């Protein structure tokens, strides 16, 4: 058993293959990083420098940037995002982007969002993957197989997130019992037939939906890895994230997860 695990880990570490999907994921995250830079710029222009208002730094106040330094960091954020999209020096730019995201969240806890943490984690891992061989501005694609260990690490990160999210809900009696879910229903009620929406708003319906969400998350953590269940798991995961996206304002997180799902697909799918 232990030998099997060790052999699997070695295979994931040394695996090589097609890198087209990594190029697609890089462009997707580059666009999301551009969106982040745009959001931060809009906030700076509209509401002013965050340090002039109430903010909650994890870091000592002395390490929080001044308005001038923050503006320079924003410029760096724009440049790094553009490089990621273009594919030129994209991997160092991904690391810089991730570092800037983390630094911003450490300077102000009010900036924390799960999707930003997720974005920083995936950008860090993507920086170590050969994501700059396809879809590069002004350069032909390099179709040679590349190391896929970082791609597998991104998939592992997906499983870790599902386990953490599903596990915390499972351990929370109120979540498990549906109290939280019943408060989320109004978002879904607008797209469901009214009789079904009413049924899901009952305590029994909310409880079943909560348990279904927990089962889905914990199941996806495992089933995405198994060849026999992968296709069904991807379909279930896409449906799950789109449903959540209709109920809550987490569209950026949905986009991130759907992008990373590309890495679970067989190379024949992503190469068209």
């Amino acid at each position, binding site marked *: 058993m232990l030998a099997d695990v060790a052999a699997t880990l070695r295979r994931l*570490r040394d695996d090589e293959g097609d890198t087209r999907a990594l190029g697609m994921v890089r462009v997707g995250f580059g666009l999301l990083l551009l969106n982040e830079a745009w959001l931060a710029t809009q906030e700076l222009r509209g509401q002013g420098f965050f340090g002039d208002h109430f903010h909650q730094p994890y870091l000592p106040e002395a390490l929080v940037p001044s308005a001038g330094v923050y503006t320079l960091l924003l410029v760096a954020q724009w440049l790094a995002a553009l490089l990621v999209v273009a594919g030129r020096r994209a991997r160092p730019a991904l690391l810089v982007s991730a570092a800037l995201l983390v630094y911003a969240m450490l300077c102000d806890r*009010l900036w924390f969002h799960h999707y930003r943490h997720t974005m920083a984690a995936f950008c860090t891992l993507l920086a*170590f993957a050969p994501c700059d061989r396809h879809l590069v501005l002004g350069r032909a694609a390099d179709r040679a197989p590349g190391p896929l260990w970082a791609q597998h690490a991104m998939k592992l990160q997906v499983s*870790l997130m599902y386990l*953490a999210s599903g596990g*915390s809900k499972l351990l929370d009696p109120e979540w498990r019992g549906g*109290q*939280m879910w019943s408060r989320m229903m109004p978002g879904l009620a607008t797209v469901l037939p009214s009789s079904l929406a009413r049924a899901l708003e009952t305590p029994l319906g909310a409880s079943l939906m909560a348990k279904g969400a927990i089962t889905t998350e914990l199941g996806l953590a495992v089933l995405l890895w198994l060849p026999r269940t992968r296709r069904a798991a991807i379909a279930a995961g896409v449906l799950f994230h789109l449903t959540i996206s209709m109920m809550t304002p987490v569209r950026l997180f949905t986009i991130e997860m759907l992008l990373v799902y590309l890495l679970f697909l067989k190379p024949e799918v992503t190469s068209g």
Partner: protein
Amino acid sequence: MLELGARGRAWFCALFFGGEILLVATADLRTDKSYGFRMFPEASSIRVHVDRRLDGGRLAPVEAGAWQAHDCSGGGHRVVWRQMVRWPAPAVLDAPVGAPYGVDNEVQRTRDALRWVADHTPEDCETRALVAHVERTRNGQPLDPVDLEVERAR
């Protein structure tokens, strides 16, 4: 630097996922459960009312999110809560404010916001402390209210 050999890959993954697992395991130590992937932990809200404690202990309510203060020279100044405290902190007073990362986190934000406002209103020479009464609702169920008081440095 980004092309790692076999040993480097193993070390990198051990550090990266070790850090992620540590963050997940310690999420309960942070009121916002940040970095723990606790998606949609609660459907909660709070309602914050702020009073100013003046000389002699008298309380003066902050109405419509603002108050008229006098500096130490007697000059008048209008102090507006919302200009200092912005969403997703409780920017609006006397109205329900969503607590997407949990009610405990929103109470902590309120306490920290009181501290920040107390420290950044030098034009107010009258207020001795800011007092907040926080009504809390977790997943639709009302909880006992919380009272906070932050003294101003003199």
